[in-house]
């Protein structure tokens, strides 16, 4: 199940996202965040990702916000540019 989610996100990052201008206010981007959150926390990660999407709104200032502390995700899933 996790793999399906992460695969879908990777597909989005590789094929859909590049055709639009960068838009995410955070680092890592919402999609990278979601990929690492879901692969690490499963269903809880889905909730985290949704909450992150809500936080990534026009009134937020963004910033650096990892789903998992950087040390753990040295082998990252994918490099989301936006």
């Amino acid at each position, binding site marked *: 199940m996790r793999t399906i989610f992460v695969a879908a996100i990777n597909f989005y990052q590789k*094929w859909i996202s*590049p055709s639009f201008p960068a838009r995410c206010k*955070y680092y890592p981007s919402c999609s990278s965040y979601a990929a690492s959150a879901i692969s690490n926390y499963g269903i809880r990660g889905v909730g985290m990702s949704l909450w992150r999407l809500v936080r*990534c709104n*026009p009134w937020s*200032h963004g*910033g*650096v916000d990892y789903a998992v502390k950087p040390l753990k995700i040295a082998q990252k899933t994918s490099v989301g540019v936006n």
Partner: protein
Amino acid sequence: MNTILNPLYNLVSGVIIIFHKLLTPVFGKDSGVTWALSIMGLVVLIRIILIPLFVKQIKSQRALTALQPQMKAIQAKYKDDRQKQSEEMMKLYKEHKTNPLASCFPIIAQAPIFFSLFTVLNGIAKNVPHGYLKGEYLASAAQAKFFGASISQSFLGSSDTTVKIVTVILIFIMSATTFTTQRQLMVKGMPKMDSSNNMMLQQQKIMLYLFPLIFAISGVNFPVGVLIYWSTTNFWTWGQQFYVIKRNPTPGSPAYEELQRKRARKAKLDNRDQSGTVIDPTNPELGQNGQEGDVKGQRKQPKKKKKR
């Protein structure tokens, strides 16, 4: 699922009905024009609501000029580490409480609205009421014609030649507007990318052609009403982008350089007698006219870049 989406059905159908009521005295209750314009009205309303967000984003993008030196420093410091670079960039934005990026939520939030519209319009075809679109309205909408094609019919769902022609034309418009909008942004609206982004550029190019194709394939399942919605929204996006690229382009993009040249030429002509620098006369404007001033103020930036 329905309990979550019901408010959205109400919203979408409510707005359509309100526009329908407003337009009935002009075009008649059962006219296809009334129904088509009601759908377009929904698009226009949604896009007008989104304008402030768009303006806000553009403004914070332009406000970035002040951070330019720090941004350059970050870029130089983490030249070889793009991840670290964007991380530090985000930190900088957060520190200064400005963020030039559009944010993800508004785009995600539009998806349920589109889905609801799809369901509501599909409901017309299947004679299933959703939200306020029921009873006499449902019957009236079901028979409404857009250039001779029922707005509830789709390419695959109908054997009527008129429906096929109208849907094909609408799908074509949909794909063409998506294509030109994306192309315009890629060619003129985006800052030039360095070679490390070549891969991304390549994907963008593929998507440029793939997206219209995807629309064309999925479009055959969409009722005429949905196609009207989509075409209108594409036209709006295109027009909005055209305006921004012309009047207020992203710093670093080809359109921006074009505008700079145009302004420089104009400024030169204006100040020929004073023989002053080009920048001087624009400075007082900074206070009076925020947006114009911002853009003009940025003229200094290329010079700074060169020095460093």
